[in-house]
């Protein structure tokens, strides 16, 4: 059907696509290739020594994980409730339009601006100090739009017949949502939230100003402690460390751990999505 000239153009477009794929593949390969030899159980389970030049990254891993738990604890309930409002309750009104505008705006705010806001509001004005609490709240603000948008999409995917049937049986609005809408949209909500949390795990700019410690070889005791965090640790090792060349294997290993964490979260989300897409079909 298509002429020789068209075939050439098809192949050019195909080459562009696969060039992108190869670059992505190469980045991941490079980090894995150089990071794997330096990765060991000791590296993951030990405290750093000598300003990060030796030892492991346990506090950074614990720090990042505690930030993620805190972030999800704040943003998930808030995000899901907002999404329920938008999908189940909201009518076409100015108020709804304003909420949508706000969500779009939040989604576009640069991460460093969230950092500035977190510093000014949570750290200084509310006097939380440079702490896990301030960091979690800042990250939660950042991923809130992601969670709202994906949760709303998941809620809207539930056929309206489910709601109608429940309401017709005399259930109240909330009973209907709780028993006939939320359970079926849970997988979509989880998928979106994992993707959001993956973004939070890798972000450096917002925690730079609100929580991250340069070098703190101990575990946090309370939510008012500073912590080390994986992305910030990598940034420090790669650019601020006095002997950046010497700690090169540690940099690669840190990058690998961070990459594994984030990619693991994304892959998990993708698998959940595929699994449930097969389970529910409407």
């Amino acid at each position, binding site marked *: 059907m298509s002429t020789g000239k068209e075939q050439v153009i098809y192949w050019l477009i195909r080459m562009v696509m696969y060039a992108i794929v190869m670059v992505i593949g190469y980045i991941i390969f490079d980090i894995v290739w150089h990071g794997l030899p330096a990765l060991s159980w000791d590296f993951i389970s030990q405290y750093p020594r000598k300003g990060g030049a030796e030892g492991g990254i346990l506090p950074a891993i614990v720090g990042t994980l505690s930030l993620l738990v805190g972030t999800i604890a704040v943003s998930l309930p808030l995000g899901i409730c907002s999404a329920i409002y938008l999908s189940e309750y909201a009518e076409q009104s100015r108020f709804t339009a304003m909420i949508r505008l706000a969500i779009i705006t939040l989604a576009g705010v640069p991460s460093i601006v969230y*950092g500035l806001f977190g510093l000014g509001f949570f750290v200084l004005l509310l006097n939380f100090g440079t702490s896990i609490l301030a960091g979690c709240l800042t990250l939660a603000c950042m991923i809130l739009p992601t969670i709202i948008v994906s949760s709303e999409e998941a809620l809207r995917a539930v056929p309206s017949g489910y709601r109608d049937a429940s309401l017709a049986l005399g259930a109240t609005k909330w009973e209907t949502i709780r028993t006939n809408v939320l359970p079926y949209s849970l997988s979509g909500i989880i998928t979106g939230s994992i993707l959001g949390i993956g973004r939070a795990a890798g972000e450096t700019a917002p925690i730079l100003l609100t929580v991250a410690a340069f070098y703190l070889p101990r575990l946090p005791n309370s939510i008012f402690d500073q912590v080390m965090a994986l992305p910030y640790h990598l*940034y420090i090792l790669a650019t601020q460390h006095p002997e950046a060349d010497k700690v090169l294997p540690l940099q690669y290993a840190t990058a690998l751990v961070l990459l594994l964490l984030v990619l693991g979260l994304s892959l998990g989300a993708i698998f959940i999505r595929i699994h449930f897409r097969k389970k529910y079909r409407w």
Partner: protein
Amino acid sequence: MWKDKAMRLLMVSAASTSICLVVLIFFFLARESAPFIVKPGLGALFDTQWIPVSFIKERFGLLPLITGSALVTGLSMLFTIPLSVLGAIYIAEIASPVEREFLKPFIELLASIPSVVLGFFGLMVLAPLIKHFFGLGTGLTALTGAFLLTLMAIPTVITLSEDAINSVPRAYKDASQALGASDLQTIFQVIIPAALPGIIAAIMLGTGRVIGETMAVLMVTGNSALMTWSPLAPVRTMTATIAAEMGEVSFGSIHYHSLFWIGLVLLAVTFILNIIAQRVLVRYGMMK
């Protein structure tokens, strides 16, 4: 029934937090940058030099930072637009269903690589490459940053452009083919023009992401606040300036307030890009 009302109230208040948050962010950035207007005055922002710490005279000109951001962003969009649009065409129109199932998650994978890891990759692999290729003294240039930002913008722009292409009614394609147009003619003369508003919105949203990107550019663009339009010169972007200097600035100083001005400019630019992109999508009926 009271429970039903209570739940409704809970959902409404949760949804309102987004509005509060936007207001708070704008208010806060404005509040923290306001003292700068009194001293040293708004005019200082239009200085051509950014020397926030100096024994002689501090200068808080945003212009070199704005041109830095503009240079890196412009270069990166130069690469991003053709690559992403062609990529989106490939995924939406040319790829086989099996290929599509593989390509889409792969692009999502790129989106999830943390910017600090990309920055690290840039530092280790890309910067030396550029240094040797162009015979420069340093590989930390605007071009290096632009390459990394391209990698970050590609997933956003491809995904949204693909949505735009998919939203073109099937009938357009059928009509074009019924008139005897080849597949390629259909793609470039019917589908792309019809999807154009969506693609433009995708590019604008991608641009917003690129302008706001911090860590990768902080790591690989060299961070010298000079006004230049050369892709091979080190530059310093607005985002990198905030990230690099906020940690050391003394609270309440002029320097502190000037960093909030940078934040305000960033916020305004991304806000406007976002709003225009949404307007375009709504206007052409491409909102989901």
